[in-house]
């Protein structure tokens, strides 16, 4: 019964989406405010229905209702509750429903927080959002109904892929989906602005928090995914430049570019058509990712040969959404003439540089991801584009970006002074050079790239700190530093935090890539192996049983000198339903790096093959990602930027914000202070 309620709710949602997608435009055409306002009601109704449907599916999973095919295929009574719930979005149909839930959620949030938006514009935004909901609902109802019945119902379900039964992966997809879908808001705002034929600084102010929110979720989702790969796949890697990973990385790059270019629109009323394009492209890349993963184009059609209709449907939807919005863009973009000007040396220029490098990088990743596809499509055999390509591109394109990143925040808006900024960052340059030289000297000439990476990270951290110091006039007037510190807004803290986060990530990557120690050995109980000065003693193995798996657990005692540091217990698990092996690495994070142990197979005579690592500073990668997220959240929590509260103090005083390019409150001009 419950399944039918869910199905019915989806059909109702389809009608609400249709209403919401059409009526506000009709209202705008007829100047009928009641019709325009229908958009608000429609998105609330869609959200209610989508939540009902999602709730019913969750209920079916929680109660193990195997008369629903989706539950029978993906769940099992013995599964822990957490994974019963995460099973809801751990499969194709359920994850699509989750997409729809998020689309409607964001629509409802825009309506709720956007009461200050002009009615007609809000109507248009919600209409575009409803159109997206409509497309996804049709996809679900016509090709991927999660509520389809199975008669007779099996007694037991198939279970979820054990690799996915993991806390990291339980929350990795929803975070990522929230990010993907969050970009839909920026997209809807962009398309609405194109329809209205006007982009104002105010528009950028409305869009930026949403782009920032989506970016925070994307950061979290990607970080969780790579963390999962690091501890679950059992070979110490955390990023493989796999097409599926690239599919999530490209929207992240575009979102990062978008939230920076929106600042220029807000401050200077320039880069308008570019920002609109970025908003469209960012969401399009999210859709592309979904398409690539689900259609099977990238991972070969064979794997999904059972239902080619799905791939065709998504492709058609993608073509309509992206093609339609870009056609609108080509038609309307010439109207978006910039009104503001900025000098060659200015914060705006630094942001332009940021945008150029970020979007070029996204384009290069796109080419690298799709290149094998083109080669195959044109019959030139199968090739792969390996990590060296992407790493090379990252090094070449991200290095200048990071150099600019250290300098940018020190430049004044509109017309900066390169000499003054340079003066401030000289210490950072010194720190960077020293860090690099020391490393080269320590390793007697090896690791030149590592030295360069370390130098860049040091440069970025130092210049972030110097920027804060110069903001509070730490050196000019040390006595007033505390007062200055209090004056720094959350948005500025957020920026510094996120930039420092990038530096920390770079530090983690550079050091762990260069100095990881690894040992692959066969050990008998009592044997000891030395890795990077830590001695791992193998104590033996013991069988253990979990709720739905049995495992062999290895025991290691790790000593530094004579002192016992910790014991590590990696496992090799065998899940019953479906039958599968997984490796559970044991990781002990130290301040200087991670101790990492994996137990392999029995090698005869009581010996086991094991792999031991010491990975210095690797946690910094996820710490940096966390800092980026915190930075984003800090920025979001700033009252000036809070979602849906675009009318700051400045605006109340100057209602004609549209005409005159607006400058933010005094403190934003920071570097001049």
């Amino acid at each position, binding site marked *: 019964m419950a399944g039918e309620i869910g199905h019915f709710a989806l059909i109702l949602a389809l009608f609400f989406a249709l209403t919401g997608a059409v009526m506000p435009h009709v209202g705008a055409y007829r100047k009928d405010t009641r019709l325009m306002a229908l958009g608000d009601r429609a998105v609330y109704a869609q959200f209610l229905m989508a939540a009902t449907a999602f709730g019913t599916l969750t209920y079916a999973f929680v109660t193990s209702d195997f008369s629903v095919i989706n539950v029978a295929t993906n769940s099992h009574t013995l599964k822990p509750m957490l994974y019963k719930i995460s099973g809801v979005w751990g499969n194709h149909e359920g994850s699509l429903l989750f997409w729809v839930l998020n689309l409607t959620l964001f629509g409802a949030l825009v309506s709720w927080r956007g009461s200050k938006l002009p009615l007609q514009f809000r109507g248009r935004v919600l209409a575009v959002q409803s159109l997206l909901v409509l497309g996804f609902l049709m996809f679900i109802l016509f090709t991927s109904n999660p509520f389809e019945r199975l008669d007779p119902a099996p007694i037991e379900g198939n279970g979820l892929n054990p690799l996915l039964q993991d806390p990291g992966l339980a929350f990795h997809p929803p975070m990522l989906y929230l990010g993907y879908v969050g970009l839909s808001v920026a997209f809807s705002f962009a398309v609405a602005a194109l329809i209205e034929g006007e982009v104002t600084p105010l528009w950028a102010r409305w869009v930026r928090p949403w782009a920032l929110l989506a970016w925070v979720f994307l950061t979290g989702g990607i970080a969780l995914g790579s963390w999962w790969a690091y501890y679950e796949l059992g070979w110490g890697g955390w990023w493989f430049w796999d097409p599926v990973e690239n599919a999530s990385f490209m929207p992240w790059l575009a979102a990062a570019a978008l939230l920076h270019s929106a600042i220029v629109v807000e401050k200077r009323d320039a880069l308008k058509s570019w920002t609109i394009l970025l908003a469209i492209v960012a969401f399009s890349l999210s859709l592309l990712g979904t398409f690539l993963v689900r259609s099977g184009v990238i991972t070969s059609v064979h794997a999904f*040969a059972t239902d080619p209709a799905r791939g065709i449907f998504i492709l058609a939807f993608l073509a309509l959404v992206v093609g339609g919005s870009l056609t609108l863009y080509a038609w309307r973009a010439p109207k978006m003439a910039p009104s503001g000007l900025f000098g060659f040396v200015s914060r705006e220029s630094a942001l332009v540089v940021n945008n150029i490098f970020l979007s070029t990088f996204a384009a290069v990743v796109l080419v690298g991801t799709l290149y094998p596809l083109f080669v195959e499509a044109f019959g030139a055999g199968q090739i792969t584009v390996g990590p060296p390509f992407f790493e090379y591109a990252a090094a070449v394109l991200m290095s200048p970006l990071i150099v600019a990143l250290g300098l940018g925040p020190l430049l004044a808006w509109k017309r900066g002074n390169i000499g003054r900024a340079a003066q401030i960052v000289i210490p950072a340059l010194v720190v960077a050079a020293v860090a690099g030289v020391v490393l080269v000297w320590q390793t007697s000439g090896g690791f030149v790239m590592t030295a360069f990476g370390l130098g860049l990270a040091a440069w970025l951290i130092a210049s972030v700190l110097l920027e804060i110091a110069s903001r509070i006039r730490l050196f000019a007037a040390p006595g007033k530093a505390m007062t200055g510190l209090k004056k720094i807004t959350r948005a500025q803290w957020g920026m510094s935090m996120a930039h420092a986060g990038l530096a920390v990530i770079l530090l983690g990557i550079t050091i762990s890539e260069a100095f990881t120690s690894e040992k692959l050995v066969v050990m008998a109980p009592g044997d000891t192996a030395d890795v990077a000065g830590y001695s791992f003693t193998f104590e033996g193995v013991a069988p253990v049983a979990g709720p739905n798996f049995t495992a062999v657990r290895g025991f290691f005692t790790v000593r530094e000198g004579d002192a016992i540091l910790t014991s590590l217990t990696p496992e090799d698990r065998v899940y019953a339903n479906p039958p599968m092996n997984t490796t559970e690495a044991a990781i002990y994070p130290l301040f200087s790096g991670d101790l990492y142990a994996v137990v392999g197979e029995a090698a005869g005579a009581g010996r086991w093959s094991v792999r031991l690592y010491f990975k210095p500073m690797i946690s910094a990668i996820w710490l940096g990602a966390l800092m980026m997220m915190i930075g984003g959240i800090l920025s979001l929590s700033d009252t000036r930027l809070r979602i849906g509260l675009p009318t700051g103090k400045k605006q109340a005083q100057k209602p004609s914000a549209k005409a005159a390019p607006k400058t933010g409150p005094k403190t934003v001009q920071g570097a001049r202070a």
Partner: protein
Amino acid sequence: MKRFLPLGIVVFLVAVFLGMMLSDRNPNEIDSVLIGRPAPAFSIDSLSADTPPLTEADLKTGEPVLVNFFASWCVPCRAEHDSLMELAGRYRVPLIGIAYKNDPAKAVGFLNELGNPFSKTGLDLDGRVGIDWGVSGVPETFLIDGSGVIRYRHWGPIVGDSLEARLLPELEALR
């Protein structure tokens, strides 16, 4: 002009994707041109030495038969073997097995190991029959009606629900 650039890129990408998805990389969608036509003529040795060669005449028995292309080196063939045994045993369908590009000794060994569901066998050592029949890979199974006309082609192994959902209904329709 440059404002049309993004649109152009997208149109190009969509065209490539569409081409990839519609191209013959997906054999499930290829319907054999032979369906509804008499099975191509052939004459090949049997796997067992003391039996006469297998020819298209063996297909015209007045009742539907299944022709299965298999090989001992083919992993999915093992997977579908239970289904073949079930077809021969429980459903009493005459099955003809053609060993495709296979060493005859290994093919016989394969049948000895897993059981022989076939009433007659043939050896297509050079793949000639396979080419005539349009076989794209093994296993592949053809349903032939009593007069030797191909009625249905099952691509890939008969596993999961494909026996009950696809093959048996086709078979029932002929009986």
